[in-house]
């Protein structure tokens, strides 16, 4: 995008001796503000400007992000039902009861199934579709648009449509299955504890596959065309080219996408709330639905606070671990290639 904006560089200083021109400008600027004490008041003025520019954003983040997060930590060590002062200090009791709660343990397990399930399903599918769409074929632009549509829809809207599709017996999915002689579960796909989480995973795959495809396609555009041409001249098959050139070169894109997908799966709320509400029999509860349920319906603010902190710690630990073990490879290879180039 940067190339769109570099053009209007003023003619006065562009050209071969830009540094000299810049020095001259600096001299003139210094002279202009050269009044006694001007330097110090300039420094103060600069500080004031910085503060004025950054303050609104920082204030908003402090009030609506930092303060609530700090409050969650504070609530987590009290037993508090939302009225009266915070005085019933219970130490780590809330953490103990959250961590020993079967429903929360289940929720953590569900989050991890969604984290790994999403990546295992969407990575091969997304790669396959991106490689397919990277060919010169009729209607390619339209295809790219269509595949991205589910991603743009609100999770709630997609969820309501899928809820209708998955209605037991009268829903389209069950009708099609009965039509080809299969037997859908009597309680419906979302009503059967053994199936519900997997169905949620499939709906999420439908919703988010488009993002993977679009990002992979963008990564593919960075693969230099000459590579394909020379590989073709050497007689490599399409599949060989993909496996030994395209996919390795997509590595950084894939790793970053995995990271985004993982963080999203850990925070999963909307789709579950619409499709199952966490049921049946807590078969699809996630950490986020657990803490919202504790905080709103039951007003167990201490428990909700402890669950929030645990959710954050898990997300943070996963993010750091991912950064350390996987994304680090990208910066290391970058450094290595830079050294090789030097």
């Amino acid at each position, binding site marked *: 995008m940067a190339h769109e904006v570099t053009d209007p560089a003023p003619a006065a200083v562009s050209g071969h001796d830009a540094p000299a021109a810049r020095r001259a400008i600096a001299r003139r600027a210094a002279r202009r503000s050269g009044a006694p004490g001007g330097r110090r008041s300039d420094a103060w003025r600069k500080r004031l400007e910085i503060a004025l520019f950054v303050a609104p954003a920082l204030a908003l983040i402090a009030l609506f992000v930092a303060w609530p997060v700090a409050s969650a930590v504070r609530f987590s060590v009290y037993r508090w039902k939302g009225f009266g002062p915070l005085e019933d200090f219970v130490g780590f009791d809330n953490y103990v009861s959250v961590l020993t709660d079967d429903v929360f343990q289940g929720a953590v397990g569900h989050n991890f199934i969604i984290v790994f399930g999403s990546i295992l399903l969407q990575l091969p599918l997304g790669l396959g579709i991106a490689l397919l769409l990277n060919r010169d074929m009729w209607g390619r632009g339209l295809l790219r648009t269509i595949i991205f549509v589910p991603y743009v829809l609100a999770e709630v809207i*997609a969820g309501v449509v899928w809820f209708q599709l998955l209605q037991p017996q009268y829903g389209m999915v069950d009708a099609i299955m009965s039509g080809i002689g299969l037997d859908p579960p009597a309680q419906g796909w979302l009503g059967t504890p053994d199936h519900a989480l997997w169905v949620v995973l499939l709906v999420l795959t439908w919703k988010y596959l488009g993002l993977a495809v679009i990002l992979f396609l963008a990564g593919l555009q960075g693969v230099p065309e000459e590579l394909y041409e020379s590989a073709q001249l050497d007689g490599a098959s399409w599949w060989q080219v993909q496996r030994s050139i395209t996919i390795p070169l997509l590595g950084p894109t894939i790793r970053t996408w995995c990271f985004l997908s993982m963080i999203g799966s850990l925070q999963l709320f909307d789709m579950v709330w619409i499709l199952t509400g966490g049921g049946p029999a807590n078969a699809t509860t996630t950490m986020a639905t657990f803490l*919202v349920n504790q905080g709103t319906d039951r007003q167990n603010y201490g428990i909700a606070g402890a669950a929030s902190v645990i959710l954050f710690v898990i997300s943070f630990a996963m993010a750091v671990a991912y950064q350390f073990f996987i994304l680090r490879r990208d910066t290391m290879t970058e450094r290595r290639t830079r050294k090789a180039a030097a």
Partner: protein
Amino acid sequence: MTRSRTKGYGGGNPLVYLIALIVVALTVGPVLYGALGGFRTNAQLAADPTGLPDPWVLDNYTGVLTNEAFWRYALNSTVIAVITTGVTVIFGVMAAYPLARYEFRGREALFMVFVLGLLFPAAVAIIPLFILITRDLSMANTWWGVALPQAAFALPMTVVILRPFLMALPKEIEEAAMIDGSSRIGVFWRILLPLCVPGLITVGVLAFIGSWNAYLLPLLLLQGEMRTLPLGVADYSTEYSADTAGVLAFTTIAMIPALVLFLALQKRIVSGLQGAVKG
């Protein structure tokens, strides 16, 4: 020599088109089912869930479009999204400007504050946020009460995207303008801001769609008349669960604004997401 765009192994063979067709069918199938289902009656839907409308009925759609509540939800969604976008873009570019164009001690540390902000998902803060807005600020059930926190959560990403954008503008711009006697703020306002309009549109669209689709925060903060479209759709589908055709029509119409916005600004959205991934 003419170079084809075929990336070497070009062209589609029938198998490629077949796979593409299956992918398209699975992707748009559910959306199309919703749109077509809205043109059927509940009796038709019950008799044959997979059939086409026969005859086509408009009642469900006219019912939604003449429903005052629908327009009320749409208005709330629009106002909240516009406030969120405005606050995010204005505060975001203001914060990104000194972080990109001023030299000062602690600049990278200040930028890290915004990067750290990326790590806090809304779900972690949601319950205290609910208490803060309903009790301490008395802003429950107001447009601003939803828009301001949404902007706060969108700001870190906005600053992270805009800073490299502003950094890429040549230094000479400011220097030349300052010889002419402009102040730094004047330079920002009259020269840099117009130059980074493409970046502002990208972050603006991301903020708008994020707000338009948001569910968790509005769910906790808005009731009755103040609900947004996602809340309206979800509540309608539980309140009138027997009226499948009506639910489908309501949902389909609620999809349209996001789809239109996406089709109109597709390039910006995609480049914004890609920028976020690269950055």
